[in-house]
């Protein structure tokens, strides 16, 4: 195979700028999606542990819907199908009038998809704690919401830091699918560099290294959270 290696292409304008911009969009999509995933997922995970049957069912329906449809299909459903089945004005707004339609569609899609995974972690975390803690929280007069806020969730989150790390990493990797609806994130930009310069090996190597750098940073950050929130005297929770 005849291939002319040219690493310099990566630091040549405009390609360096493309990589930087792609990296920026990847981070922007992932972080916004993670915020949605974390809060929505926590709410749904809590719903699945309450005593109220209707909430439990609603939570289960959400999780089973969003985790059982391929993410790529969800991306298309949000971007191509949803605007068509809404009333015309709402559909037009989604397609055209709202700022950055591709970006926000990707964020909502990735956020709601990941929320289903976060919900399952939160549910597992709370169920691990056991009824005794829940009873103790209620027995001192906390309302059910206060019991979740002050006791069950703070303990539950500590238990699920390691699996949450995986989901957080998943958001970064899955954000590459946003290219299919036209978000020029890292994968899209590096592919474009490959097409413009025929230096696909170099550009995808750059993408690989940047994704690795991001995920290792996330892992270090989560490890830090895990250590800092570890409960003194407890071995089963927190850092090892």
């Amino acid at each position, binding site marked *: 195979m005849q291939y002319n290696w040219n690493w310099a292409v990566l630091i040549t304008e405009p390609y360096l700028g493309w990589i930087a911009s792609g990296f920026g969009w990847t981070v922007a999509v992932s972080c916004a999606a993670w915020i949605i995933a974390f809060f929505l997922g926590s709410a749904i995970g809590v719903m699945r542990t309450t005593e109220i049957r209707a909430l439990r069912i609603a939570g289960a329906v959400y999780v089973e819907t969003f985790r059982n449809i391929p993410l790529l299909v969800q991306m298309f459903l949000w971007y191509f199908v949803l605007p068509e089945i809404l009333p015309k004005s709402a559909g037009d707004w989604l397609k055209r009038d709202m700022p950055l339609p591709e970006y926000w569609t990707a964020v909502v899609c990735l956020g709601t998809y990941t929320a289903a995974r976060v919900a399952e972690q939160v549910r597992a975390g709370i169920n691990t704690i056991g009824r005794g803690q829940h009873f103790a929280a209620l*027995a*001192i*007069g*906390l309302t059910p919401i206060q019991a979740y806020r002050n006791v069950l969730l*703070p303990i539950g989150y500590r238990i699920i830091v390691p699996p949450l790390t995986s989901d957080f990493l998943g958001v970064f990797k899955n954000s590459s699918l946003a290219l299919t609806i036209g978000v020029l994130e890292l994968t899209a930009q590096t592919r474009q560099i490959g097409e413009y310069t025929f230096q696909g090996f170099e550009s995808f190597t750059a993408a690989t290294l940047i994704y690795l750098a991001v995920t290792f940073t996330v892992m270090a950050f989560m490890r830090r959270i895990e250590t800092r929130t570890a409960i003194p005297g407890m071995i089963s929770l927190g850092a090892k």
Partner: protein
Amino acid sequence: MIEIQNASKWYSAFRVLNDCTTRVAKGEVVVICGPSGSGKSTLIKCVNGLERIQRGSITVNGVSVGAPDTDLPKLRAGIGMVFQNFELFPHITVVQNINLGQIKVLGRSKDEATDRALALLRRVGLHEQADKYPAQLSGGQQQRVAIARALAMDPVAMLFDEPTSALDPEMINEVLDVMVGLAQDGMTMMVVTHEMGFAKKVANRIVFMDEGQIVEDTTKDEFFGTRRGERAQLFLSKILSH
């Protein structure tokens, strides 16, 4: 103070509580004993509504526990509860455990709550452990903190659900001592326990349960005297034989 009238409860077809009726007067200490699976723990958890009865009624200070319009968090705040497995909140310190309800439920300031917490810790002999986390304490210490946490809410009554069953033998007495002190101070107490020594020392009445029913409900003297029934006799002979 606590009135239990014909309380019944089923777990699907299994009847855990069968028409239980008893009462605890203000300042009274009532010990509930009986073989495991007899419904003691379930009964005591129904008093503050952690478990629900399906038939009958329970009132605390005139407030019906099961009524739909009852403010359960408010009712529970006024009744202290101590659990078999302590159930301290592991992610916060001892003093924060005692402060949580005071601040979130009673609306006390942090300083006010801490003063009260430290005074109670002193009372149970643990004021030096205030800033430790529960997992750094022994079982007996944790249970004493749990008692302090319940007392911090200034309860009108205290419920104890087998408070010494999960403890190593050498730690049982440090918890019982605190409970005896409470009883002697006039606290209204409902105590599920097998500690017959404790019952003999401070109980006013003994309730003996078997298979979800209250079989005996007598004064302490009658219970430990000769007038107890056959089933209670059998139970006592089993737990007192060693």
